[in-house]
């Protein structure tokens, strides 16, 4: 939907590949043409590389934009595109492979002189225990091919490590078809700060500032903002420079995001991973820089290279985004698919809404539960928070449960208001809420 908008502005014809259940969705109505590629199950539609490329060839599409889900970071799609002469709007297949494998990405970071979290690849339980002694507990067992918290386990005692490793490997094998795991030191109080980059494919790289995505629940981002509040100028510059170094080392092509963990206690940072696609939270960067990242992706893929120099990137004000999901915070954030009977998105000054949901839209249970994103932009952070709260208050969604009320709780929280929360903030907030509910029901 977001991509179709930019294409329309650039007068690029669009063909949307949709599953049967998405045939009549809002994006399908906005695209110049929609082709139905298969049934609702992603494995039979959105994950079928051959079908997608066939659809592109048959509709005489010059390029494929993979969006940010499903195949966006699969080297297989980029490879078939390269073989068939269809432009893949993204990095090369080799670059996707290099950053998709966390161990290889770590090695690239180290080679680019970018600090990584102390950790180690492990193949067996005895080897893991030996490595864990050096790294120290608490530590995390992570999937080499993973993401989104799957295949990730926290270990507080060394004796729990073999069992956690087995569990993580099984989960990783089921989710990613790759059971390899590695160990990483657990940072007690860390912030998730990422840097948006654009690369021309031959070593030219610019950054578009950072985003703070520390407001997460079980590694799922909920609120993102730019600039990251309360970072020292030195740390901010170091983050930007590190992101540019690793991107340049890869001769990376297209838009990407380099994720870092900022250690609140040590005021230091570590490379986490690189996301080789446009991200859900890209609008906050667009709001403060005025750059249409999708348009730049398309220009780079089209061979125009970088149309902007680093000096052209000026950041103005603050932007905050909240992800509106069809889920029920009262029921452990269980997904709440269904029919959206009524919807009214906000349209105040400084507010942008990216959504595919209109009255009568169905939220199918097959895909993730994101309904839309509300982005607020203002000259300062307090102003952006206030605008976002007003926008949330005027949003109406009937028919499915949403996390709108939870967003209001986050945005009105003192700790969030102060800025610079760590990734455990949401867990603490939920605990406090649960405590209050218990207190209220007892009293």
């Amino acid at each position, binding site marked *: 939907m977001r991509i179709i908008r930019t294409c329309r502005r650039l007068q690029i014809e669009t063909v949307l590949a949709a599953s*049967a259940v998405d045939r009549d969705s809002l994006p399908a109505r906005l695209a110049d043409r929609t082709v139905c590629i298969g*049934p609702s199950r992603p494995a039979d539609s959105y994950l079928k590389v051959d*079908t997608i490329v066939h659809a592109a060839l048959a509709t005489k599409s010059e390029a494929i934009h993979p969006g940010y889900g499903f195949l966006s970071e699969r080297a297989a799609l980029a490879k*078939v595109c390269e073989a068939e002469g269809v432009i893949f709007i993204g990095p090369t297949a080799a670059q996707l492979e290099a950053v998709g494998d966390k161990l290889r990405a770590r090695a690239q970071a180290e080679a680019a002189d970018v600090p990584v979290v102390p950790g180690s690849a492990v193949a067996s339980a005895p080897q893991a225990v030996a490595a864990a002694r050096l790294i120290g507990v608490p530590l995390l067992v992570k999937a080499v091919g993973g993401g989104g918290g799957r295949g990730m386990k926290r270990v507080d005692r060394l004796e729990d490590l073999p069992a956690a490793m087995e569990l993580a490997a099984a989960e990783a094998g089921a989710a990613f078809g790759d059971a390899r795991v590695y160990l990483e030191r657990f940072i007690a109080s860390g912030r998730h700060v990422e840097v948006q980059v654009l690369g021309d494919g031959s070593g030219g790289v610019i950054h578009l500032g950072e985003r703070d995505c520390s407001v997460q629940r079980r590694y799922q981002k909920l609120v993102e903002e730019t600039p990251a509040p309360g970072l020292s100028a030195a740390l901010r510059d170091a983050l930007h420079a590190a992101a540019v170094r690793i991107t340049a080392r890869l001769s990376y092509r297209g838009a990407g995001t380099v994720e870092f963990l900022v250690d609140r206690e040590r005021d230091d940072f570590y490379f986490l991973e690189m996301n080789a696609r446009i991200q859900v939270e890209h609008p906050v960067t667009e709001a403060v820089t005025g750059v249409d990242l999708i348009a730049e992706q398309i220009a780079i893929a089209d061979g125009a290279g970088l149309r902007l120099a680093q000096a052209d990137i000026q950041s103005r004000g603050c932007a905050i985004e909240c992800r509106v999901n069809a889920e029920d915070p009262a029921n452990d954030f269980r997904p709440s698919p*269904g*029919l959206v009977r009524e919807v009214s998105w906000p349209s105040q000054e400084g507010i942008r809404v990216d959504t595919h949901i209109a009255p009568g839209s169905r939220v199918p249970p097959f895909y993730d539960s994101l309904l839309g994103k509300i982005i607020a932009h203002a000259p300062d952070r307090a102003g952006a928070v206030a605008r976002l709260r007003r926008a949330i208050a005027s949003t109406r969604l009937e028919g499915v449960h949403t996390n709108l009320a939870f967003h209001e709780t986050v945005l009105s929280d003192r700790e969030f208001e102060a800025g610079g929360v760590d990734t455990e903030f949401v867990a603490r907030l939920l605990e406090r809420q649960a405590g209050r509910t218990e207190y209220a029901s007892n009293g």
Partner: protein
Amino acid sequence: MSLTAADVAEIMRLVEQSGFDELTLEIDGIKLSLRRGAPAELSSGPGLHLPAVGLPETPGTAPAPAAAEPNVCNVASPLLGTFYRAPKPGEPPFVEVGAQVEEETVVAIIEVMKLMNSVRAGVRGTVTEILVADGALAEFGETLMRVRKAG
């Protein structure tokens, strides 16, 4: 796999106990829609999903009845790809209008990136219409042909 009346009753019971008002279930060519406060409806999809009426023996390949005539069934494309009427260029087509077909008769090929997938009639009868041009793109669920059921 087929869905028995007892299965449907069990599913209705589960929906009744759940927090949901509506359920749409699709398994192997059968589409079941349940809505709270409305009668259960076991039906074919809207011209797609290779749906089955009367629970055929080969679920997933039986065509849906065309909306206009109850005895005419749609043969839907099982996947997105290029529609070919003949096994090879220059060879006679698998079927013409008027041809008699059995459930297992191959009536067309859908090619996806050089991979050939046979399309079977899924019903016994007479081909009455061929709707997609040879070599054209057929979408998933698109009606390729219509067959008038025998008997």
